[in-house]
């Protein structure tokens, strides 16, 4: 370790970051912090408690937490194999597949909702099949989870894929030469290796699912306790009671911040 790189605050600042980047970083941080602060200043604190504990608000929050959790589980279930396929194997059209899989990142959520509608809607590509099977998607919580998974999946895939590429395949190769089966390599080597990326990807996916709005509104509808998640409740309250909308918005920010703080630790940060 080089001298002068102790644990003091001064040491951290002089680690080699040019000072001008700090100015820009500060400006960028303020650009995000100020609007949140501005919104907080609008909160009517005398009514805050009542507004965030109203029946509609509690129903929306619980629905949001429930659906975002289910979406994150689905993202993990399908996203990790997707990341593995993209990072560890080669197949024709891989670049195109990768680009398409990441499309929900850039699609306006309303477009995502329309795409889901034309596929899982009652008159969509697969809608009738589901109806025959007795699965009701229209206006159900399932539709909310589908919409959230659609927009959140790329976050998990990107995060896990990047970690897989960064960690390299050396340990996996060694394990394989020592006689480990592909299943054992995945379980004992690959997954522990990419755990940080997996966790941060899952947190990002959860946060994205929590904030999902456009696709849900277009595809799932809006009914208290069934499809009206917290973002939809905020959008609705804004029509009649701006104070309620701001209070609920702050609730959403608090929940998202808590989740991030509790679990999102970039690698190298202890």
């Amino acid at each position, binding site marked *: 370790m080089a001298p002068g790189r102790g644990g003091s605050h001064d040491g951290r600042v002089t680690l080699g970051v040019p000072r001008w980047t700090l100015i820009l970083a500060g400006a960028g941080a303020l650009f995000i912090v100020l609007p949140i602060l501005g919104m907080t200043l609008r909160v009517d604190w005398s009514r805050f408690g009542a507004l965030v504990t109203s029946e509609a608000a509690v129903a929306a929050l619980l629905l949001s937490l429930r659906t975002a959790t289910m979406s994150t589980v689905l993202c993990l279930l399908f996203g990790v194999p997707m990341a593995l396929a993209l990072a560890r194997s080669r197949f024709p059209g891989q670049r195109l597949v990768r680009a398409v899989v990441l499309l929900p990142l850039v699609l306006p959520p309303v477009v995502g909702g329309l795409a889901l509608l034309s596929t899982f809607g009652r008159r969509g590509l697969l809608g009738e099949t589901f109806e025959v099977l007795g699965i009701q998607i229209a*206006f159900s919580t399932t539709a909310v989870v589908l919409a959230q998974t659609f927009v959140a999946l790329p976050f998990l895939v990107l995060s896990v894929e990047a970690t897989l590429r960064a960690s390299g395949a050396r340990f996996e190769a060694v394990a394989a030469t020592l006689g480990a089966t592909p299943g054992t390599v995945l379980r004992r080597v690959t997954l522990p290796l990419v755990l940080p990326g997996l966790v941060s990807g899952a947190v990002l996916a959860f946060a994205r699912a929590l904030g999902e709005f456009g696709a849900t509104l277009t595809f799932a509808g809006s009914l208290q306790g069934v499809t009206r998640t917290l973002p939809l409740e905020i959008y609705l309250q*804004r029509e009649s009671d701006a104070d309620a909308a701001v209070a609920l918005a702050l609730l959403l920010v608090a929940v998202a911040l808590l989740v991030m703080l509790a679990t999102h630790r970039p690698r190298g940060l202890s």
Partner: protein
Amino acid sequence: MTGFRSVRLALGLAAASVVLAGCAGTAGAAPGSTGSSTPQSRAQGETLTVFAAASLTKTFTELADRFEADNPGVTVALNFAGSADLVTQIREGAPADVFAGADARSMDRLRGDGLVDGDPAVFATNTLTIAVPADNPAGIASFADLAAPNVDVVVCAPQVPCGAALPALEAATGVTLAPVSEENAVTDVLGKVTSGQADAGLVYVTDVASAGAAVLGIPVPEAGQTVNEYPIAVVAGSGQARLGASFARFVTGATGQSVLGAAGFGTP
């Protein structure tokens, strides 16, 4: 500690730079948005900014064209959104000269804040009707049919104009609905019907008229008892009060009424 101090200084400078950049951005991107008292007059003429309810998109676009043709040098800038959104925008200082809402409630909120110049005039009425997909899969023939089990009905939430009239309609018909979704805007209700996602939706008669062959309208006789009134008024502090009043008269006048009537709006 000098390093630490200079970081704080940098942060202070950064804060100022963000604010300055923000100010510059506002001035460049949205001229006149600092207050409704500064009218935008282009080199050639004047601009009248009209904030109108989303359900007026087609009719007001046509009326603006005709108003511009009648008044050379005048440009009508239109901003369409839900009435409540428009009220919020005006309250936050958006440079509106004229406000045309989809219900009395939104206009009352503006008046309550002293943001209306003079008295609003009602220029159109609208009533609710049932819209079903063109093939009417659930075989809806009356308002009472909407309450049948396994019929997916979509309505507007009570907080928005198109949903505010629903309780009165339920009272008049004696039928209470159990909707599968309460949407934020009438366009969202219509979307759920045109896509076939819902069996039926409650929308305005004008929405059925503009949706064309995609949906079928099923009249509700009792809807005539719960008429929605559309008010128009000049926004207080507008630098174009005279031109704004002239536009409001144009909308309530013969041309306005014929365009609105053709779209299915009722006359006040």
